């Protein structure tokens, strides 16, 4: 190809991605850089800022409240991510087996619906579902609990139950999105693979293990990473329901970051937390990508 043509193509390509680059730079990169810079400054009374080097890093990273928030976040993540991924995969496999396109679409839409609802609105609805006195959950569970001699459960007001309860909301909210990704990927697997396996005498389980799961690997890794990021950054549901309570039992890193920045007006400390979240997510994502991604070709 003539060099002039290639040059024009390259220029056109650059121009096409330029709006996205500008958007990404303005919305993500600049704030990220601001956060990194801000993490070396503290705001002093009167509103001025003062360069303090790595002092805020030492302060935040030795603060037990911060590590409690990290612990809460990780615990929420451990409860939500595997359940969401496995459940979404199971639902997608079930939907994929439906022969009627109408039925499949209807079911898929139902699963997807929660994803389209505002998280804050959903959280408020769930707050009512979980209400110990008026909640529909205790209403239905009441007789069973009473038979076991257990008092009505205080879902969001219990130190032990608050995180599993919030994890359930996250699973509910994210299940549809993950299911859609898996379903699309399942539909892209050629039917011939399964036919060949069937001729070789493979049953459903070996087909799932040897064909479906390996071919879904890129999607599984991607969904797991997305879920990890979503759950690490979870804020809306916690903010709308518990505000980190009771007694800090559901305070996540992002909740603490928000309070630190906007309630306590410590922008430097909050920037340190933002940098921590960024680095932690980056490392975990890279690690996950490296460990679990398999290139499968048939």
């Amino acid at each position: 190809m003539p060099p002039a043509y290639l040059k024009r193509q390259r220029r056109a390509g650059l121009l096409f991605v330029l709006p996205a680059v500008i958007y990404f730079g303005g919305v993500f990169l600049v704030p990220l850089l601001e956060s990194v810079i801000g993490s070396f400054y503290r705001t002093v009374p009167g509103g001025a800022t003062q360069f303090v080097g790595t002092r805020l890093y030492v302060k935040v990273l030795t603060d037990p409240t911060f590590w409690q928030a990290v612990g809460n976040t990780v615990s929420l993540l451990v409860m939500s991510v595997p359940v969401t991924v496995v459940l979404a995969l199971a639902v997608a496999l079930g939907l994929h087996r439906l022969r009627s396109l109408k039925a499949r679409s209807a079911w898929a839409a139902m699963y997807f619906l929660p994803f389209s609802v505002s998280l804050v609105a959903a959280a408020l609805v769930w707050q009512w579902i979980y209400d110990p006195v008026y909640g529909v959950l205790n209403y239905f569970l009441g007789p069973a609990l009473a038979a076991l001699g257990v008092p009505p459960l205080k879902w969001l007001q219990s130190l032990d139950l608050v995180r599993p309860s919030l994890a359930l909301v996250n699973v509910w909210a994210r299940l549809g999105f993950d299911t859609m990704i898996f379903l699309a990927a399942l539909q892209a697997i050629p039917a011939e693979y399964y036919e060949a396996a069937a001729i070789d005498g493979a049953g459903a389980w070996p087909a799932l293990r040897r064909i479906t799961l390996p071919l879904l690997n890129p999607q599984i890794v991607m969904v797991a990473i997305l879920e990890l990021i979503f759950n690490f950054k979870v804020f809306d549901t916690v903010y709308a329901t518990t505000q980190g309570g009771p007694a800090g039992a559901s305070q996540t890193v992002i909740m603490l970051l928000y309070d630190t920045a906007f309630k306590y007006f410590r922008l430097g400390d909050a920037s340190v937390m933002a940098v921590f979240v960024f680095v932690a997510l980056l490392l975990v994502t890279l690690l996950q990508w490296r460990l679990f991604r398999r290139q499968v070709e048939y």
Partner: protein
Amino acid sequence: MRGAWTIAMAAVVAVALAAPSSWAQPKKLVFWTHWEQNPEFNKFYETRGKDFAQKSGYEVQVVTVPYQGYEAKYLAALMGKSGAPDIFMGMTHHWCGQYDFCDKMPADLAKTWDENLPKYIVNVGKWKGVRYGIPIEHGNFQQMYIDTDLFKKAGLDPDRPPKTLDAWLAAMKKLTVLDAKGEPSQVGFALRHKGHPVGITDKFLPFAHAFGARMLSPNLEKATTFANSAEMVAALQFYADLVNKHKVASIAFPTPEDAFGQKRAATIFRESWFFGWVKKNAPDVAFKVYALPCGKACPGAGNLFPWTNMVAKSSPSKQAAWDFMRFISNAKDDLDQHQAQGILPVWTANLESAYVKSRPDYQSTQEMLKQPVPPEYYHPKSNELATAFGEAVVAALYGKGQPQPLLDEAAAKMDRILKD
């Protein structure tokens, strides 16, 4: 003739182009408030803004920012300056102390307010002796609201409220109804256990003050020996026992206001705005208001949230903003605005008005005002300090630990915050 038309049209176009943008739309003073529970009170600024517009050309536009997260919006706007309000509601020690967002009040207006405020709120709105803010709520201290029907049902006389904490606890026990499983279906006291720890601290402080405790040293420089004093430990033990031992308050119940409005709680401690709230949201609840019960001390008129109106330093219309504030700084407007919402007015001249005298909290307010002013904590870091303290309170309520170690830990944390 055609030439004259052309000249006339050109003149019209030229005038239209040269005209200031203010001709096209009236000039506006943007007023931010997060008092979402008081819409009539907020509307007053717009109503009077229309009168103000006739002499100044400035109208007032009120923007009600949801309370949850208002700090984030205020901070972003005031830091960014673009889109910031001209006038905003908040706490002076935060916005003028921690940050430098406030314009100093003109001396004549400051004098007007200093001369017309009840003594206990003269310092509200000041930072380091300089007045920035106008206090907007006189009854911004908790009093005891009782449900008279539930009192009668429990065999208690609603006209003879408990005056001491011991008598109060005894009454709360009579007012609590337990179900077959021993869980309260109706409680004596609507206790705040949910939400941000700052609010939880606020609701606990009257108990702490009744026990003779204080959260910080008088100069607001130290927490240890104050936040974890023997008196504070006793107060927190008493408070936690309401839930865990006596079961006269419940953490299973929703927000305390709802519990009171739904007749699931017989008493609540809240500020003067609650009178208007109950009237509007729970009109079938018959209630009376009394001074808070006393322990070693009687909790007087004090608060953790001294709300004021301030003018933004960055406002291009700050002169007009102060003129508007001056315009409504008089006894009549004060009475009209507060009466519209059912809140106690601020001006001393209005404290004996027919409206105030007709309120169910008139006597109790007088009684509360007679008590010494309880400790105040108007520190730029008050939110962070109250959070550290509130975490100990809520942990005790949820049985996560004993008051002494929880308060020791809180006091140490508060000292770190104060030193930082």
